[in-house]
C-alpha cells in the first residue's frame, strides 16, 4: 500500500492525458467544499433529544458554532504545517490521507452525535475533518500547475471552483438524507453523517487513484516555454521556508487577506443587508435566493478570474479586483439611497465573483513568484491569510453596523460606513499589490538543496 501512494508510482506514463488531473482534483475539492454547507446541520443538532424542539440537555447553537471554527482553524494549521510533506510525498499520498481524515471525521462525529458527546464531534469533524480540509485543499495545486504550465490559472481555478461548488452538492444532499433518516423519535443526523462520510471517503479515494504527476521534463504538446521570461514570472524555484522570508510572500498574504476580508464580511451579512437596505422590497425568502445567487457567482468567479489571469497576468487581475471592488463598494450606499435593487444585486454579484477569484488566482500568483517546486507548501502557509480574514471581515461588518445602529443611524443606512471601510481596505490591497516585484535571485534554491530534496 505504501508504494502505491509514493510519488514515484504516480508518475504518468506516455499517453496519459493531463485532462484527467482536473477531475481528480475536483474529486477532492467538491467533497471538502462541504464545509461551506455545514450550517445545515446546526439547527437539527440542537434537537437531537427534544426532536421537535430543543430540550434542556440539547446542545446549544453557540456550542455547535465551535465545530466549524475548529475545522477552519485546523484547515489553516494543517495546510501551513503539512505543506512541505504534501509537496515531497506527492499528491496521491496527500489526497489519500485527506480522504481518510475527512471521511473519518464524519464517522467519528456520527458516533459523537449518536452518543451525544459533543467533544467527539469537535474531535471528529473539527480536528480530523479540519486536517483533511487543509491537506485536501493544497494537495492538487502544484500538480495542476505542473500539468498546465501554459494555463496555470485556469487549472487551479477549476479545482478551487470545486471547493466553492461543494456546498451546492452538500446542502441539498444533507437535507435530503436527514429527511430520509428522520422519524418521529429521531432526527437522523448521525445516519446522515455516516452516509456522507462513506460517500466522501469513496469519492476522494477515486481522486487519489486517478491523480498523476508529469514525468520529469514533460511539457504539453506544442508548448514552448517563453524564451524571455515575463517580468514577474520566475523560472527558478524558491524553497518553502525561504519564501516566507521574502517581502513578496507577505505582500501577497496581505493582498489575499484584504480581498477576502472585504468579501467575507458581506457574504455572511448579505441576507440581512439586502432586507435592511430595501425594507419591504426584499423579503426573507427573496434574500435567501440572493444568497444562493451570490454563492453561484462566488463559484463561477473562481474559474473565470483565474482563467483570465492567464492572459492579463496575476498582478493586473488583482488590480482589477481592488480598483473595481473599491468603486463597487463605494457605490453600494448609493444604490440603497436611490432604491435601485437591481444595481445593488449586480454590485454584490461582481464583488463576490472577485472574492472567489482572489482565492483561485493566488496559487498561480505564487507560482509566478516562487516557481512550481514548493508552490503547494507556500500556498499552505498563505492560507493563514484566509483564517485571519475569516475573523477580521465579519467582525468589522458586524461591529460597525451595531455601532451605527446604537448611534441612532437608521438600519437602511447602517452599512454605509462599513462599505466605505471595505473600499478603503481594497485601496490598501491595491497598494500592496502595486509594491510586488520579482523575487530577488538570492532566494532561489541552490544546487545542493535541489539535490537534497530532489526535483519533481
Amino acid at each position, binding site marked *: 500500500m505504501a508504494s502505491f501512494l509514493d510519488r514515484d508510482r504516480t508518475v504518468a506514463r506516455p499517453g*496519459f492525458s493531463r485532462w484527467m488531473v482536473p477531475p481528480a482534483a475536483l474529486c477532492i475539492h*467538491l467533497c471538502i467544499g462541504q464545509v461551506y454547507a455545514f450550517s445545515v446541520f446546526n439547527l437539527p443538532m440542537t434537537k437531537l433529544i427534544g426532536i421537535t424542539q430543543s430540550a434542556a440537555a440539547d446542545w446549544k447553537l453557540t456550542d455547535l458554532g465551535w465545530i466549524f471554527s475548529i475545522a477552519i482553524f485546523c484547515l489553516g494549521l494543517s495546510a501551513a504545517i503539512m505543506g512541505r510533506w504534501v509537496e515531497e510525498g506527492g499528491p496521491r499520498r496527500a489526497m489519500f490521507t485527506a480522504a481518510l481524515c475527512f471521511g473519518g471525521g464524519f464517522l467519528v462525529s456520527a458516533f459523537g452525535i449518536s452518543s451525544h458527546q459533543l467533544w467527539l464531534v469537535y474531535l471528529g469533524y473539527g480536528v480530523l475533518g479540519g486536517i483533511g480540509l487543509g491537506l485536501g485543499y493544497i494537495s492538487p495545486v502544484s500538480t495542476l500547475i505542473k500539468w498546465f504550465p501554459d494555463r496555470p490559472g485556469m487549472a487551479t481555478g477549476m479545482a478551487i471552483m470545486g471547493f466553492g*461548488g461543494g456546498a451546492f452538492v452538500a446542502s441539498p444532499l444533507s437535507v435530503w438524507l436527514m429527511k430520509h433518516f428522520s422519524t418521529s423519535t429521531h432526527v437522523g443526523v448521525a445516519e446522515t453523517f455516516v452516509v456522507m462520510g462513506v460517500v466522501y471517503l469513496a469519492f476522494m479515494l477515486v481522486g487519489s487513484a486517478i491523480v498523476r504527476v508529469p514525468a520529469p521534463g514533460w511539457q504539453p504538446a506544442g508548448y514552448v516555454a517563453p524564451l524571455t521570461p515575463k517580468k514577474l514570472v520566475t523560472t527558478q524555484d524558491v524553497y518553502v521556508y525561504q519564501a516566507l522570508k521574502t517581502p513578496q510572500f507577505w505582500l501577497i498574504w496581505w493582498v489575499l487577506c484584504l480581498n477576502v476580508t472585504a468579501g467575507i464580511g458581506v457574504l455572511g451579512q448579505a441576507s440581512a443587508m439586502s432586507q435592511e437596505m430595501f425594507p419591504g422590497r426584499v423579503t426573507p425568502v427573496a434574500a435567501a435566493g440572493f444568497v*444562493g*445567487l451570490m454563492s453561484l457567482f462566488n463559484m463561477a468567479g473562481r474559474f473565470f478570474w483565474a482563467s483570465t489571469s492567464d492572459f492579463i497576468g496575476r498582478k493586473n487581475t488583482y488590480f482589477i479586483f481592488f480598483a473595481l471592488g473599491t468603486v463597487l463598494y463605494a457605490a453600494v450606499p448609493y444604490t440603497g439611497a436611490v432604491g435601485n435593487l437591481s444595481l445593488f444585486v449586480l454590485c454584490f454579484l461582481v464583488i463576490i465573483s472577485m472574492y472567489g477569484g482572489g482565492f483561485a488566482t493566488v496559487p498561480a500568483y505564487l507560482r509566478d513568484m516562487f516557481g512550481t517546486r514548493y508552490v503547494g507548501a507556500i500556498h499552505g502557509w498563505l492560507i493563514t491569510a484566509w483564517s485571519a480574514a475569516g475573523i477580521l471581515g465579519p467582525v468589522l461588518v458586524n461591529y460597525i453596523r451595531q455601532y451605527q445602529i446604537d448611534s441612532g443611524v437608521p438600519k437602511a443606512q447602517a452599512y454605509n460606513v462599513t462599505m466605505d471601510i471595505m473600499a478603503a481596505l481594497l485601496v490598501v490591497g491595491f497598494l500592496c499589490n502595486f509594491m510586488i516585484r520579482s523575487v530577488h535571485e538570492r532566494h532561489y534554491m541552490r544546487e545542493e538543496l535541489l539535490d537534497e530534496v530532489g526535483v519533481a
Partner: protein
Amino acid sequence: MREQTAGGTTALHLILAWGFVGIPLAWGVIETVRNALALFG
C-alpha cells in the same frame, strides 16, 4: 487534448472522469438556480 489521448487515456476515461465530478456539480448548481429563481419569482 486529443494528441495526448492516443496512449493510456482514452476518450471513455475522460468522459467517465469528468462525468463523475460534473454530474453531481451540475445537479447542485441546477438545484441552487431553481431555488433562487423560485424565490425571486
